[in-house]
């Protein structure tokens, strides 16, 4: 059962430093060989300040910067062995570059507890007090066999 008192709860902020090698590692892992992620000269030619973080970087910031998310999920009442990732959404305000220090704040954006449990965690990522990205992750836990 979900603990509905977590609705709207904000967890303590964390910081994560963006690094060129971690950008390269993520791009290499997903097969994104675009030179803008590997070579700062190529990135500058395309109008970037340096090798930018790829589109799915918020997942890296959240898991490496806030591995406690797994404990928070358990705390909220999510059975992490059975969870499924249902949705992931990003809104980008500014590109993010190596050397940036990102402050992340995770909150429980919405919760629903019926036959199917659904929880959305919202991460607000900011740099020097300015929001650079809002990331939302929605997970579901399907009903267990034989009911709850």
């Amino acid at each position, binding site marked *: 059962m979900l603990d509905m008192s977590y609705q709207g709860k904000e967890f303590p902020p964390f910081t994560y430093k963006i690094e060129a090698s971690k950008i390269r590692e993520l791009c290499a*892992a997903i*097969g994104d060989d675009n030179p803008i992620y590997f070579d700062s000269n190529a990135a500058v030619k395309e109008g970037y300040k340096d090798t930018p973080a*790829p*589109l*799915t970087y918020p997942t890296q910031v959240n898991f490496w910067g806030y591995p406690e998310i797994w404990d928070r999920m358990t705390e909220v009442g999510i059975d992490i062995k059975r969870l499924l990732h249902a*949705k992931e*959404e*990003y809104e980008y305000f500014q590109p993010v570059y190596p050397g940036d220090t990102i402050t992340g704040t995770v909150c429980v954006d919405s919760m629903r507890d019926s036959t199917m449990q659904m929880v959305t965690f919202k991460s607000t990522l900011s740099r020097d007090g300015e929001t650079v990205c809002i990331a939302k992750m929605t997970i579901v836990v399907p009903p267990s066999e034989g009911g709850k």
Partner: protein
Amino acid sequence: MAPKFDSLETGTMLPEMTTEPVTQLHLIKYAGASGDFNPIHTIPEYAKEAGLDGTIIHGMYVMGVMGKMLSDWAGNKNIRKYGVNFKAMTKPGAVLTAGGEIKRKYEDDNGKKLINLKLFVKDETGDVKLDGKAVVECE
């Protein structure tokens, strides 16, 4: 370089991109890169205990594949929104194809020239794994 608003038409399909077969090694690398160490993706015995017949590909890996197709076409810094719905589990061995379509062309209240895209990733059998949407700012 951003997509040229005037030369874009709704209904136009984006260039598709196809991966090599995704292997268990890809998932091990992805776990380390992303920090998502849920063993359901990397340890077959654990995946079986969780009721699956083997490991499954990280949903975020598949979103990364779609993201490459999207950012190669639109340019990373021109993308304002990007979101996906995960539709089905994907197993190692899958060959993934990402693509999309221009759904809408409009100017917002600030005069920004925007397009909405509908995106997909399917496997070699045509099974859709991911539905996506993006908003791209054009010039």
